[in-house]
Every structure is written in structure tokens, then in C-alpha cells.
């Protein structure tokens, strides 16, 4: 039997299942009952099936910097994370607002620089961003849409309020886990779904394809869309194959494409086929050796010129990284006010600017209580969890920050919410975040297909897969 009374202490943070007085929240009651009825042995037997299914489907990721360079199964916890329709409606509006504002910012910094001229964002911050791509200055993109796909990471504070932890506007991944988790859970635990009306997630690929077709260059009535992958050694290769298959589009590598007279073509056995839209999962630096890293073999020579002349759409656009630079993050609420004339619906986490002398001194003096993040890294790399890090690691970050203050920001440690998770001894609370994916075409579409990542180590606050994180099926109730 799974114990349904609070088996884990709900201390100074919000729990998704139990309210502060220890009673289950109403939308979790039926789930708890079903799990209780199934019983421990049955659940464990089915979990074994789930693991086998995931392994067979190849739901894996690669840990970089791992000595073995190994591919691992992305751990999946079968207890779903449930969001009510009201909670989701708030998230949806908040994400739509944020993505519109960041997109407007990206357009602006590559065109008239209004927000810089009006001194709402410091010029130096933008020009010093490693991902401010100067080739994009004055380049126009269809419908002025840059961030076709974004993954905005949300967390809940101790009161249960959703806040934005970081923006991901380059090539966010994780949707394949959302799709696979739902498939596998439905197969192995159909009973869990019996009492709930859960929004589907399997329409995500279709909605993504709609966006990709919509942003095709003018005049392409039947746009040819391809997914450009760096290849099998990329940590998200599994996702690339899955998305291409479910969208019914070609999965290609750089060497499959060629630029002829500023037009991109796919080399096929039937000859050259014109390509209108490239959903790329390759970083800017590797896209075109003629303009970016000139030793890159992953990209397509001449692509930048085809793009510049409007003959092909690249999604996401080149240069979106200036919008998700972690030092730019603290200005997003101002961007919302500036471009949309609205008040932010989702709050930021307070963030210290290490280029400011006073703030940097505060950060250096309080490393044991802060989280330090590299402004251009992602995936949990290059970060310091002050309270949990060994002293020599904090010393190392102190030197790094002093040497390159622009490369770091610091934030207080936020106690993420916990969610019931199956562990060896039964069910315990483990910390979670939430990554909804937003698709920007005609407007900002937020499919009810969000990824919940869970820190499987007890007490851990880091949910990244590279740092021992797993995932959960995320239910948005209708």
C-alpha cells in the first residue's frame, strides 16, 4: 500500500499534492485514491514495464563531459504532476506576454534599438552579449518572428506562485519527453486517467508544423520544411528524430543541404529539392562556416546569405540568444512594460548584476547562500549552488566572477515546489520545475504540453537531466 498520509515533511516550500495542513489538494484526491487501490506491488511491476518501454523507444540523453560520454535513459517518474485549468490559464497568458515582449526586444536590438535609445536597457549589456549576433543587424525575418519555439522555465515559490526562472529562446529541448511520457503512462497506467479530463499533448507536432509553414518565405504555397540536426552524437538527437517523424518532414544534416544562387536545396535521390523552412537544432555558431565558426562541418555554407535575402526561413531565427542571456533576463519585466504597455503577469526571480560593483561585492560576500549562473550556459552547466557547494568550488567561482563579471549573475536560492515522487521507500516529495513550450506564428500558442522536470536526489534543487534530474507526465486539466 502506498501511504496517502503526508509521508514527507512539507516544510518551508509549496507541495503540489499536500496543502500546508497536510490534506491533499482536491485535484490530486482521485489520483491518490487510484494509486492506493493499485497497491505497491502492482505499481512496481508496471514501473518495470515503463522502464523497459522507454529503453526500447530510446528515450535517452547524453551527458557531456561524462568520462564515458554515455547515453542514458531519461528517468521517468510515473506519478503525474497535475495543473488545474485555472493555474494553466494564468501560465498561458503569462508565457504569451513574455514571449511577445522578448521577441519584440530581439527585433528591436537588430533594428532601430528603441529600447536602448530610451535607456531602458543598457547598450553595453546587449553589445557585450556573446549571443548578440551582429550578422543579424538590419536583417528582416518573416512576420518579425524570431522565437518560433521557446521553453520558459517556471518554478513555484513557497506560496505556490509561479515565477520565471529562465528563458530559453535558442533551441530548447524536452518536448520529446512530454510526448513519450504521456504515451508510456497511458499504456501502463490507463486507470490513472479514468477520473480526469487531461488535455492531449500529441497535437504538439502538428501545431509546430503549422507555425513553421506559416513563417515560410512569401510565395511558397506548399512550403518544404526540414529539421536540421547536428547528428547522432547530439544529446537531443532522439528528439530530432521523433519530431521529424511526427511532423512528417525530412530529418537532415548540414551535408544534405546545398545553397545554389542564394536558395537552399535538399540533395535527394530525385535531384535537388528546394527547402523553404529549416527547423534547426544547431547553434548559431555552427550554421554557416562562411560567416560563423569557419571550421564547422555541421552547417550549410552560404546559408546566412540565403537567409539574409529572404529565400529561406530559419527557426528559431539566428541571434535569439541575446534574448535569453541570463544577464538580460532581469530586464524582461521592463520589456513587457516598454513594448506591450502591460504589467508582467509572471514575476522574475530577484537577480544580482555582477557587473555592478556594489552588487558584485554582495554576491562575492554571500556565495554560500546564492545560486550563481553563467549568463550564456544552459542545461545546468557552469552553475554554482552556493549552500551545497564545497568551499573550494565557491572560491573558484569567486575568481571566475572577478575575472569576468559579465559572464555571471546570482540569485537567491528558491525553494522549488515538491511533487509526490515514487522512490525506493514509497512516495516522497521531490522538487520540480515546469517548462511550457510556446510556439510563435500568427500569435503565441502555448500547447498544454509542458515538461515537468524533477530533482530525483533527496533535497536537491537542480532538475537538469545532466545533474540527476528526471521527468514526469504533466497533466493540464480541461
Amino acid at each position, binding site marked *: 500500500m502506498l501511504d496517502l498520509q503526508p509521508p514527507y515533511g512539507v516544510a518551508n516550500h509549496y507541495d503540489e499534492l499536500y496543502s500546508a495542513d497536510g490534506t491533499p489538494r482536491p485535484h490530486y484526491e482521485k489520483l491518490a485514491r487510484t494509486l492506493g487501490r493499485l497497491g505497491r506491488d502492482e505499481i512496481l511491476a508496471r514501473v518495470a514495464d515503463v522502464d523497459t518501454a522507454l529503453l526500447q523507444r530510446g528515450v535517452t540523453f547524453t551527458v557531456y563531459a561524462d568520462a564515458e560520454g554515455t547515453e542514458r535513459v531519461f528517468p521517468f517518474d510515473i506519478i503525474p504532476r497535475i495543473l488545474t485549468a485555472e493555474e494553466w490559464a494564468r501560465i498561458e497568458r503569462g508565457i504569451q506576454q513574455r514571449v511577445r515582449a522578448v521577441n519584440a526586444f530581439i527585433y528591436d536590438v537588430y533594428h532601430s534599438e528603441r529600447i536602448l535609445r530610451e535607456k531602458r536597457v543598457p*547598450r553595453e549589456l546587449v553589445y557585450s552579449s556573446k549571443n548578440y549576433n551582429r550578422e543579424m543587424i*538590419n536583417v528582416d525575418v518573416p512576420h518579425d518572428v524570431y522565437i518560433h519555439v521557446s521553453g520558459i522555465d517556471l518554478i513555484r515559490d513557497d506560496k505556490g506562485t509561479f515565477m520565471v526562472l529562465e528563458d530559453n529562446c535558442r533551441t530548447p529541448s524536452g518536448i520529446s519527453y512530454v510526448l513519450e511520457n504521456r504515451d508510456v503512462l497511458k499504456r501502463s497506467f490507463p486507470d490513472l486517467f479514468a477520473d480526469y479530463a487531461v488535455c492531449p499533448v500529441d497535437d504538439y507536432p502538428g501545431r509546430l508544423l503549422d507555425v513553421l509553414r506559416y513563417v515560410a518565405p512569401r510565395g511558397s504555397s506548399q512550403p518544404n520544411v526540414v529539421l536540421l540536426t547536428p547528428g547522432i552524437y547530439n544529446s537531443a538527437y532522439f528528439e530530432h528524430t521523433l519530431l521529424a517523424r511526427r511532423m512528417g518532414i525530412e530529418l537532415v544534416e548540414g551535408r544534405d543541404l546545398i545553397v*545554389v544562387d542564394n536558395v537552399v536545396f535538399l540533395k535527394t535521390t530525385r535531384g535537388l529539392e528546394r527547402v523553404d523552412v529549416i527547423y534547426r537544432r544547431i547553434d548559431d555558431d555552427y550554421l554557416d562556416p562562411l560567416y560563423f565558426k*569557419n571550421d564547422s562541418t555541421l552547417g550549410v555554407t*552560404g546559408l546566412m546569405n540565403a537567409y539574409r*535575402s529572404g529565400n529561406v526561413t530559419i527557426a528559431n531565427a539566428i541571434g535569439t540568444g541575446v534574448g535569453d542571456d541570463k544577464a538580460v533576463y532581469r530586464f524582461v519585466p521592463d520589456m513587457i512594460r516598454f513594448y506591450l504597455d502591460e504589467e508582467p503577469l509572471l514575476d522574475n526571480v530577484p537577480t544580482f548584476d555582477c557587473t555592478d560593483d556594489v552588487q558584485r561585492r554582495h554576491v562575492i560576500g554571500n556565495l554560500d547562500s546564492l545560486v550563481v549562473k553563467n549568463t550564456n550556459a544552459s542545461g545546468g552547466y557552469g552553475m554554482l549552488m552556493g549552500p551545497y557547494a564545497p568551499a573550494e568550488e565557491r572560491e573558484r567561482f569567486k575568481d571566475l566572477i572577478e575575472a569576468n563579471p559579465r559572464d555571471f549573475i546570482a540569485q537567491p536560492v528558491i525553494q522549488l515546489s515538491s511533487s509526490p515522487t515514487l522512490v525506493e521507500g514509497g512516495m516522497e516529495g521531490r522538487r520540480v520545475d515546469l517548462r511550457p513550450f510556446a510556439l510563435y506564428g500568427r500569435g503565441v500558442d502555448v500547447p498544454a504540453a509542458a515538461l515537468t522536470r524533477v530533482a530525483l536526489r533527496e533535497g536537491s534543487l537542480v532538475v537538469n537531466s545532466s545533474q540527476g534530474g528526471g521527468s514526469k507526465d504533466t497533466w493540464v486539466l480541461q
Partner: protein
Amino acid sequence: MEYTIAHQTTYYYADSVNESYTVLHLQPRSDPHQFCTKFAIDVTPHARINSYADRFGNDVQHFAILPPHDALSITTRSNVVTMLEHDPMPPFDATRAMLEADPKVERFYDFLHESSFVRFVDEGATFRAEFGDPGESLGVWCTNVMHHIHASFSYDTDATTVRTTVTEAIARRAGVCQDFAHIMISVLRAAGIPARYVSGYIFRGESRVLGAEASHAWCEAYLPPYGWVGFDPTNDRAINDHFVKVALGRDYRDVSPVRGVYRGGRQSEMSVNVAMDVLAGYQTPAPEARRQQQPQQQQ
């Protein structure tokens, strides 16, 4: 002055190459001080030329040759009228106060910071001490920087390559016009004076015959109330009507006359030929000016 310039660049590949993509910065600019009245490109093997204006306002051409080829030849022909005076007023009224009060300066981030070839290194700091503090009279100081670089570096086509950074050129105290320009840019930027790289051509006065010459390079400093002022540290001269400006950028990397990517063998040989002729307005220079001429850089 009005010039006609023919610039030919030829690559010979040891083994044939294919899918070659080439980007050119060879079209003289049109601005308040010069006007490009004619520009034509001829590429062998044949290629369709596309172009765009980059963020510095340079007209950039590019083309691709997909079938295998063992040579590539690019010839441009330009006619340019230059309107600067022959003996421009030195920018001696420029002051630090004027620079600091100028609202445009905040947009010159790229011309005040390090770039691929322009680094502010420790060796550079020692080197920069030779120039003293700029003080208030920036125009005077910039002119002195030019004199000092010219006097303390030797012009040596064997000392450096197109990939040489400021650090390396300073260590050798030698280089070609590209290095001289990068060095002066690094000294100016480190002193808080916006500086940018200019590629172009310099007219060699009396030697009006076609000859094996090449592109030239110099630098410009932003000095209010004058705006951008050109200095040629290679020849220790102010920029006048003998200079034709082709492209400007942060450093050589932004404006390299010909660059490209191709598939196939790495071994290639390159030859460059520039012929610059006067169409109108030429007067025989004084003997003094003639002696100051320096050979120009092989790109």
C-alpha cells in the same frame, strides 16, 4: 581626383576544389568624401554575383562555384572620384571634452572594444605607455601616435601574415599596413577613442604604370568636431585625395577583400594585382611627398 582601379585576385589550387563560396569586400564606398561612379566584377569560372549592404554600409558581393575547378580569378574595375583636400587641416581642435559630450559615441561600442585582431594585452599596456597620456588634445595625440608607430616599426612583408594579431606585431616591431592599422586602432581604443579599420587603395603618385601592388589599410578615429578622421600610420600621412576607401569595419576580419570556404585540397597559391590610374585631377607631387611613399601590403 578621379581614379580607375583594376584589382585582380587569382587562386591556383594544387588539387581541384568544388563548392567554393566566396565573399568580397571590393566595392569602393560612396560617401560625402568620395563617389564610386563605376564598379564591375568579372569572375572565372563564371558565377552569378549576389550582393548586400553589411551593417557598416559596405557593399558586399558573394558568389558560389559548385563544379570542380583548379583556379579562381576575381577582377574588379572601379572608377572613383575623391573629394578630400590634398592637404587636409590637421584635427588639432579635437578635445576629450568634445568626445565625451558627443551623443553618438555610445553607439560606437564595437569601435571602443577588443575585436578579433585588436586585443588590449599586457604587452600592449607596456607598449601604450610609450605614447603617454592623451590628455585633452586628442587630435594632437592621435597624430603623435601615428608618427610614433611609423617611426618605431619597420615595414616588413615577411614579418607577419594576414592572421597576425596586434600582440604579435608589437612583439616583432614590424609588419605591413594591416598590422600598422591594427596597432594604431588598439592604442586609440584603449585610450577611449573610437577607432575603426579601413581597407582601400592609395595612389602612388608618379608611378602611374600598371604594377604588382595590392590593397592598402589605415585607420580612422572618431574626433569631434571633425567626425571620423583618417590616419595612415604606414606612411605617416593624413588621409587625403590620394586614398580610396573600400570598406570599413572593426578590423581586417570584417573587411577582408576576398574570403571563402571550399571543399577539396587545402593547398593553394594566390596572386594579387592592383593597378590604379588617374583619370583626372593629378598634379606631380613635391619631392618630399615622394620620398615618404612606402610599399603597400601584400594581402
